């Protein structure tokens, strides 16, 4: 009898340890998502991770239940707020309750203010990207669902008209995103009629490039002002250039 009890005890212990161990293991090796879209006013990702105390006050403040706290499987980001536009986009509240509620400035009022007044249109949660292979408007079929619902219609999301050479009598009505204006609210992703949305919000730092200072848009008035004070004295090593040109590969 004593023996049977011992065996039972051992069995229970082994099963419990194995279950707990495998749970920790799967959580450690699996991550839900590598990139998370942050609430309006969030600082850049590394600064944000350093500043967010993971209190969820922003989540609580959002009247549309847009924001969620990341779960265990989000690695170091666990407990930080994010949103999934396809489920619930950000409704761009004018009083930005999520930012106002943040106690640590991880959501920074300054980043969503103009002249000291809150201005939600300055939010840059991400940027909408259109997959022109899946967007049926680019097939020539009439759909402007995303364009119609964009809170910044004709500013962030515009329609471009183009002749459809295939039918020779119809027009393409093509949605085009203006990256300078798009807030990344995700309403377009939410309403896109395709099965897997043809327009998606991506984190800005992943999508956007940057151009060297020395490229100037000569046709934009005042753009050359950027060159003021820039060191234009570029030192080229002539020998290096010669070597390069004489290199066997060329």
């Amino acid at each position, binding site marked *: 009898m004593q023996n049977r*009890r011992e065996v039972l*005890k051992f069995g*229970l*212990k082994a099963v*419990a*340890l194995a*279950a*707990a161990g495998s*749970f*920790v293991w799967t959580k450690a090796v699996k991550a839900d998502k590598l990139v998370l879209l942050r609430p309006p006013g969030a600082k850049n990702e*590394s*600064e944000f*991770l*350093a*500043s967010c*105390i*993971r*209190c*969820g*006050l922003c*989540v*609580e403040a959002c009247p549309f239940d847009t924001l969620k*706290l990341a*779960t*265990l499987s989000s*690695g*170091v*980001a*666990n*407990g930080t707020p994010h949103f999934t536009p396809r489920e619930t986009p950000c409704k761009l509240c004018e009083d930005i309750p999520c930012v106002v*509620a*943040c*106690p*640590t*400035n*991880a959501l920074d009022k300054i980043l969503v203010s103009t002249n000291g007044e809150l201005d939600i249109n300055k939010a840059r949660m991400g940027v909408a990207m259109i997959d022109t292979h899946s967007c049926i408007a680019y097939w020539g079929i009439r759909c402007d669902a995303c364009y119609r619902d964009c809170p910044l219609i004709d500013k962030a999301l515009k329609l471009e008209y183009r002749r459809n050479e295939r039918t020779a009598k119809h027009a393409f009505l093509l949605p085009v995103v203006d990256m300078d204006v798009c807030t990344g609210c995700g309403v377009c992703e939410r309403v896109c009629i395709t099965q897997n949305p043809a327009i998606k919000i991506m984190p800005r730092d992943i999508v956007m490039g940057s151009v060297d200072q020395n490229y100037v848009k000569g046709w934009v008035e005042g753009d050359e002002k950027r060159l003021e004070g820039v060191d234009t004295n570029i030192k080229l090593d002539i020998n290096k250039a010669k070597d390069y040109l004489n290199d066997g590969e060329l």
Partner: protein
Amino acid sequence: MKILLFRRLTQILILVAFIVSNHYGLKLLLGDLSASSLFGAITFADPFALLQLILAGASVGMSVIIGAVIVAILYAVIAPRAFCAWVCPVNLFTDMAAKLREKLGFNKDAKLLNLPKNTRYYLLLAILVFSALLSLPVFESVSFVGMVQRGIIYLDIFVLAAIFVIIVFDMFVLPRGICGYICPLGAFYALLSKFSLIRISHDLSKCNKCAKCLKACPEPQVLSMVGHKSGFVTNSECISCGRCIDVCNDDAMKFSIRNLKEER
């Protein structure tokens, strides 16, 4: 039993206050144990979390700094590690694990892991150093205390798995392992409350040396004077749970105000 009841009530009521406020729109106590807003007016914050944020180089708002200082002062003057015994929800489950271990007869099993008692202080130090080096609040990124309290407060079903792991660890891997050896937050509060005022005091003249208190205590090293001399529990690793008072039949233990001057 009386103090234990009070303790459970406080621990659970705090969680309930958070849950009803967050989910039913009451403005009582919003947020979670990392930072919260009382009546929508007063901000509280976890001083250890804030310390990590600051070391990580965050420029945080003033309200949260004041909130963390208030909380730190509160815990520094009341009782040692009052957070652990009276607020932290992890304590509910590590206590449960200790109970289960005893009830199911695992208490004589060898532990699978042997750690020095000081592990938590080394972890605490490492966390502070790495928070600065990596510009990341290192403990908050992996904190089981954060996961459990957030999981309960925001009603995330996954919290059950985390709780299960904690119970299994404390039952089979290292008895009282989480709160007694590993948790850097507990270590932080132990250091913070070095000079706190409310302490357990022991009266040798009433003690009949049954050692029940030593068996009940989650940090028995703090009761080294029991049966030898009267006095206060000066070691701030005591979590002020009052278990020793509950189990003592001879009234030899009680909470009282420590006299710091006399100790000098």
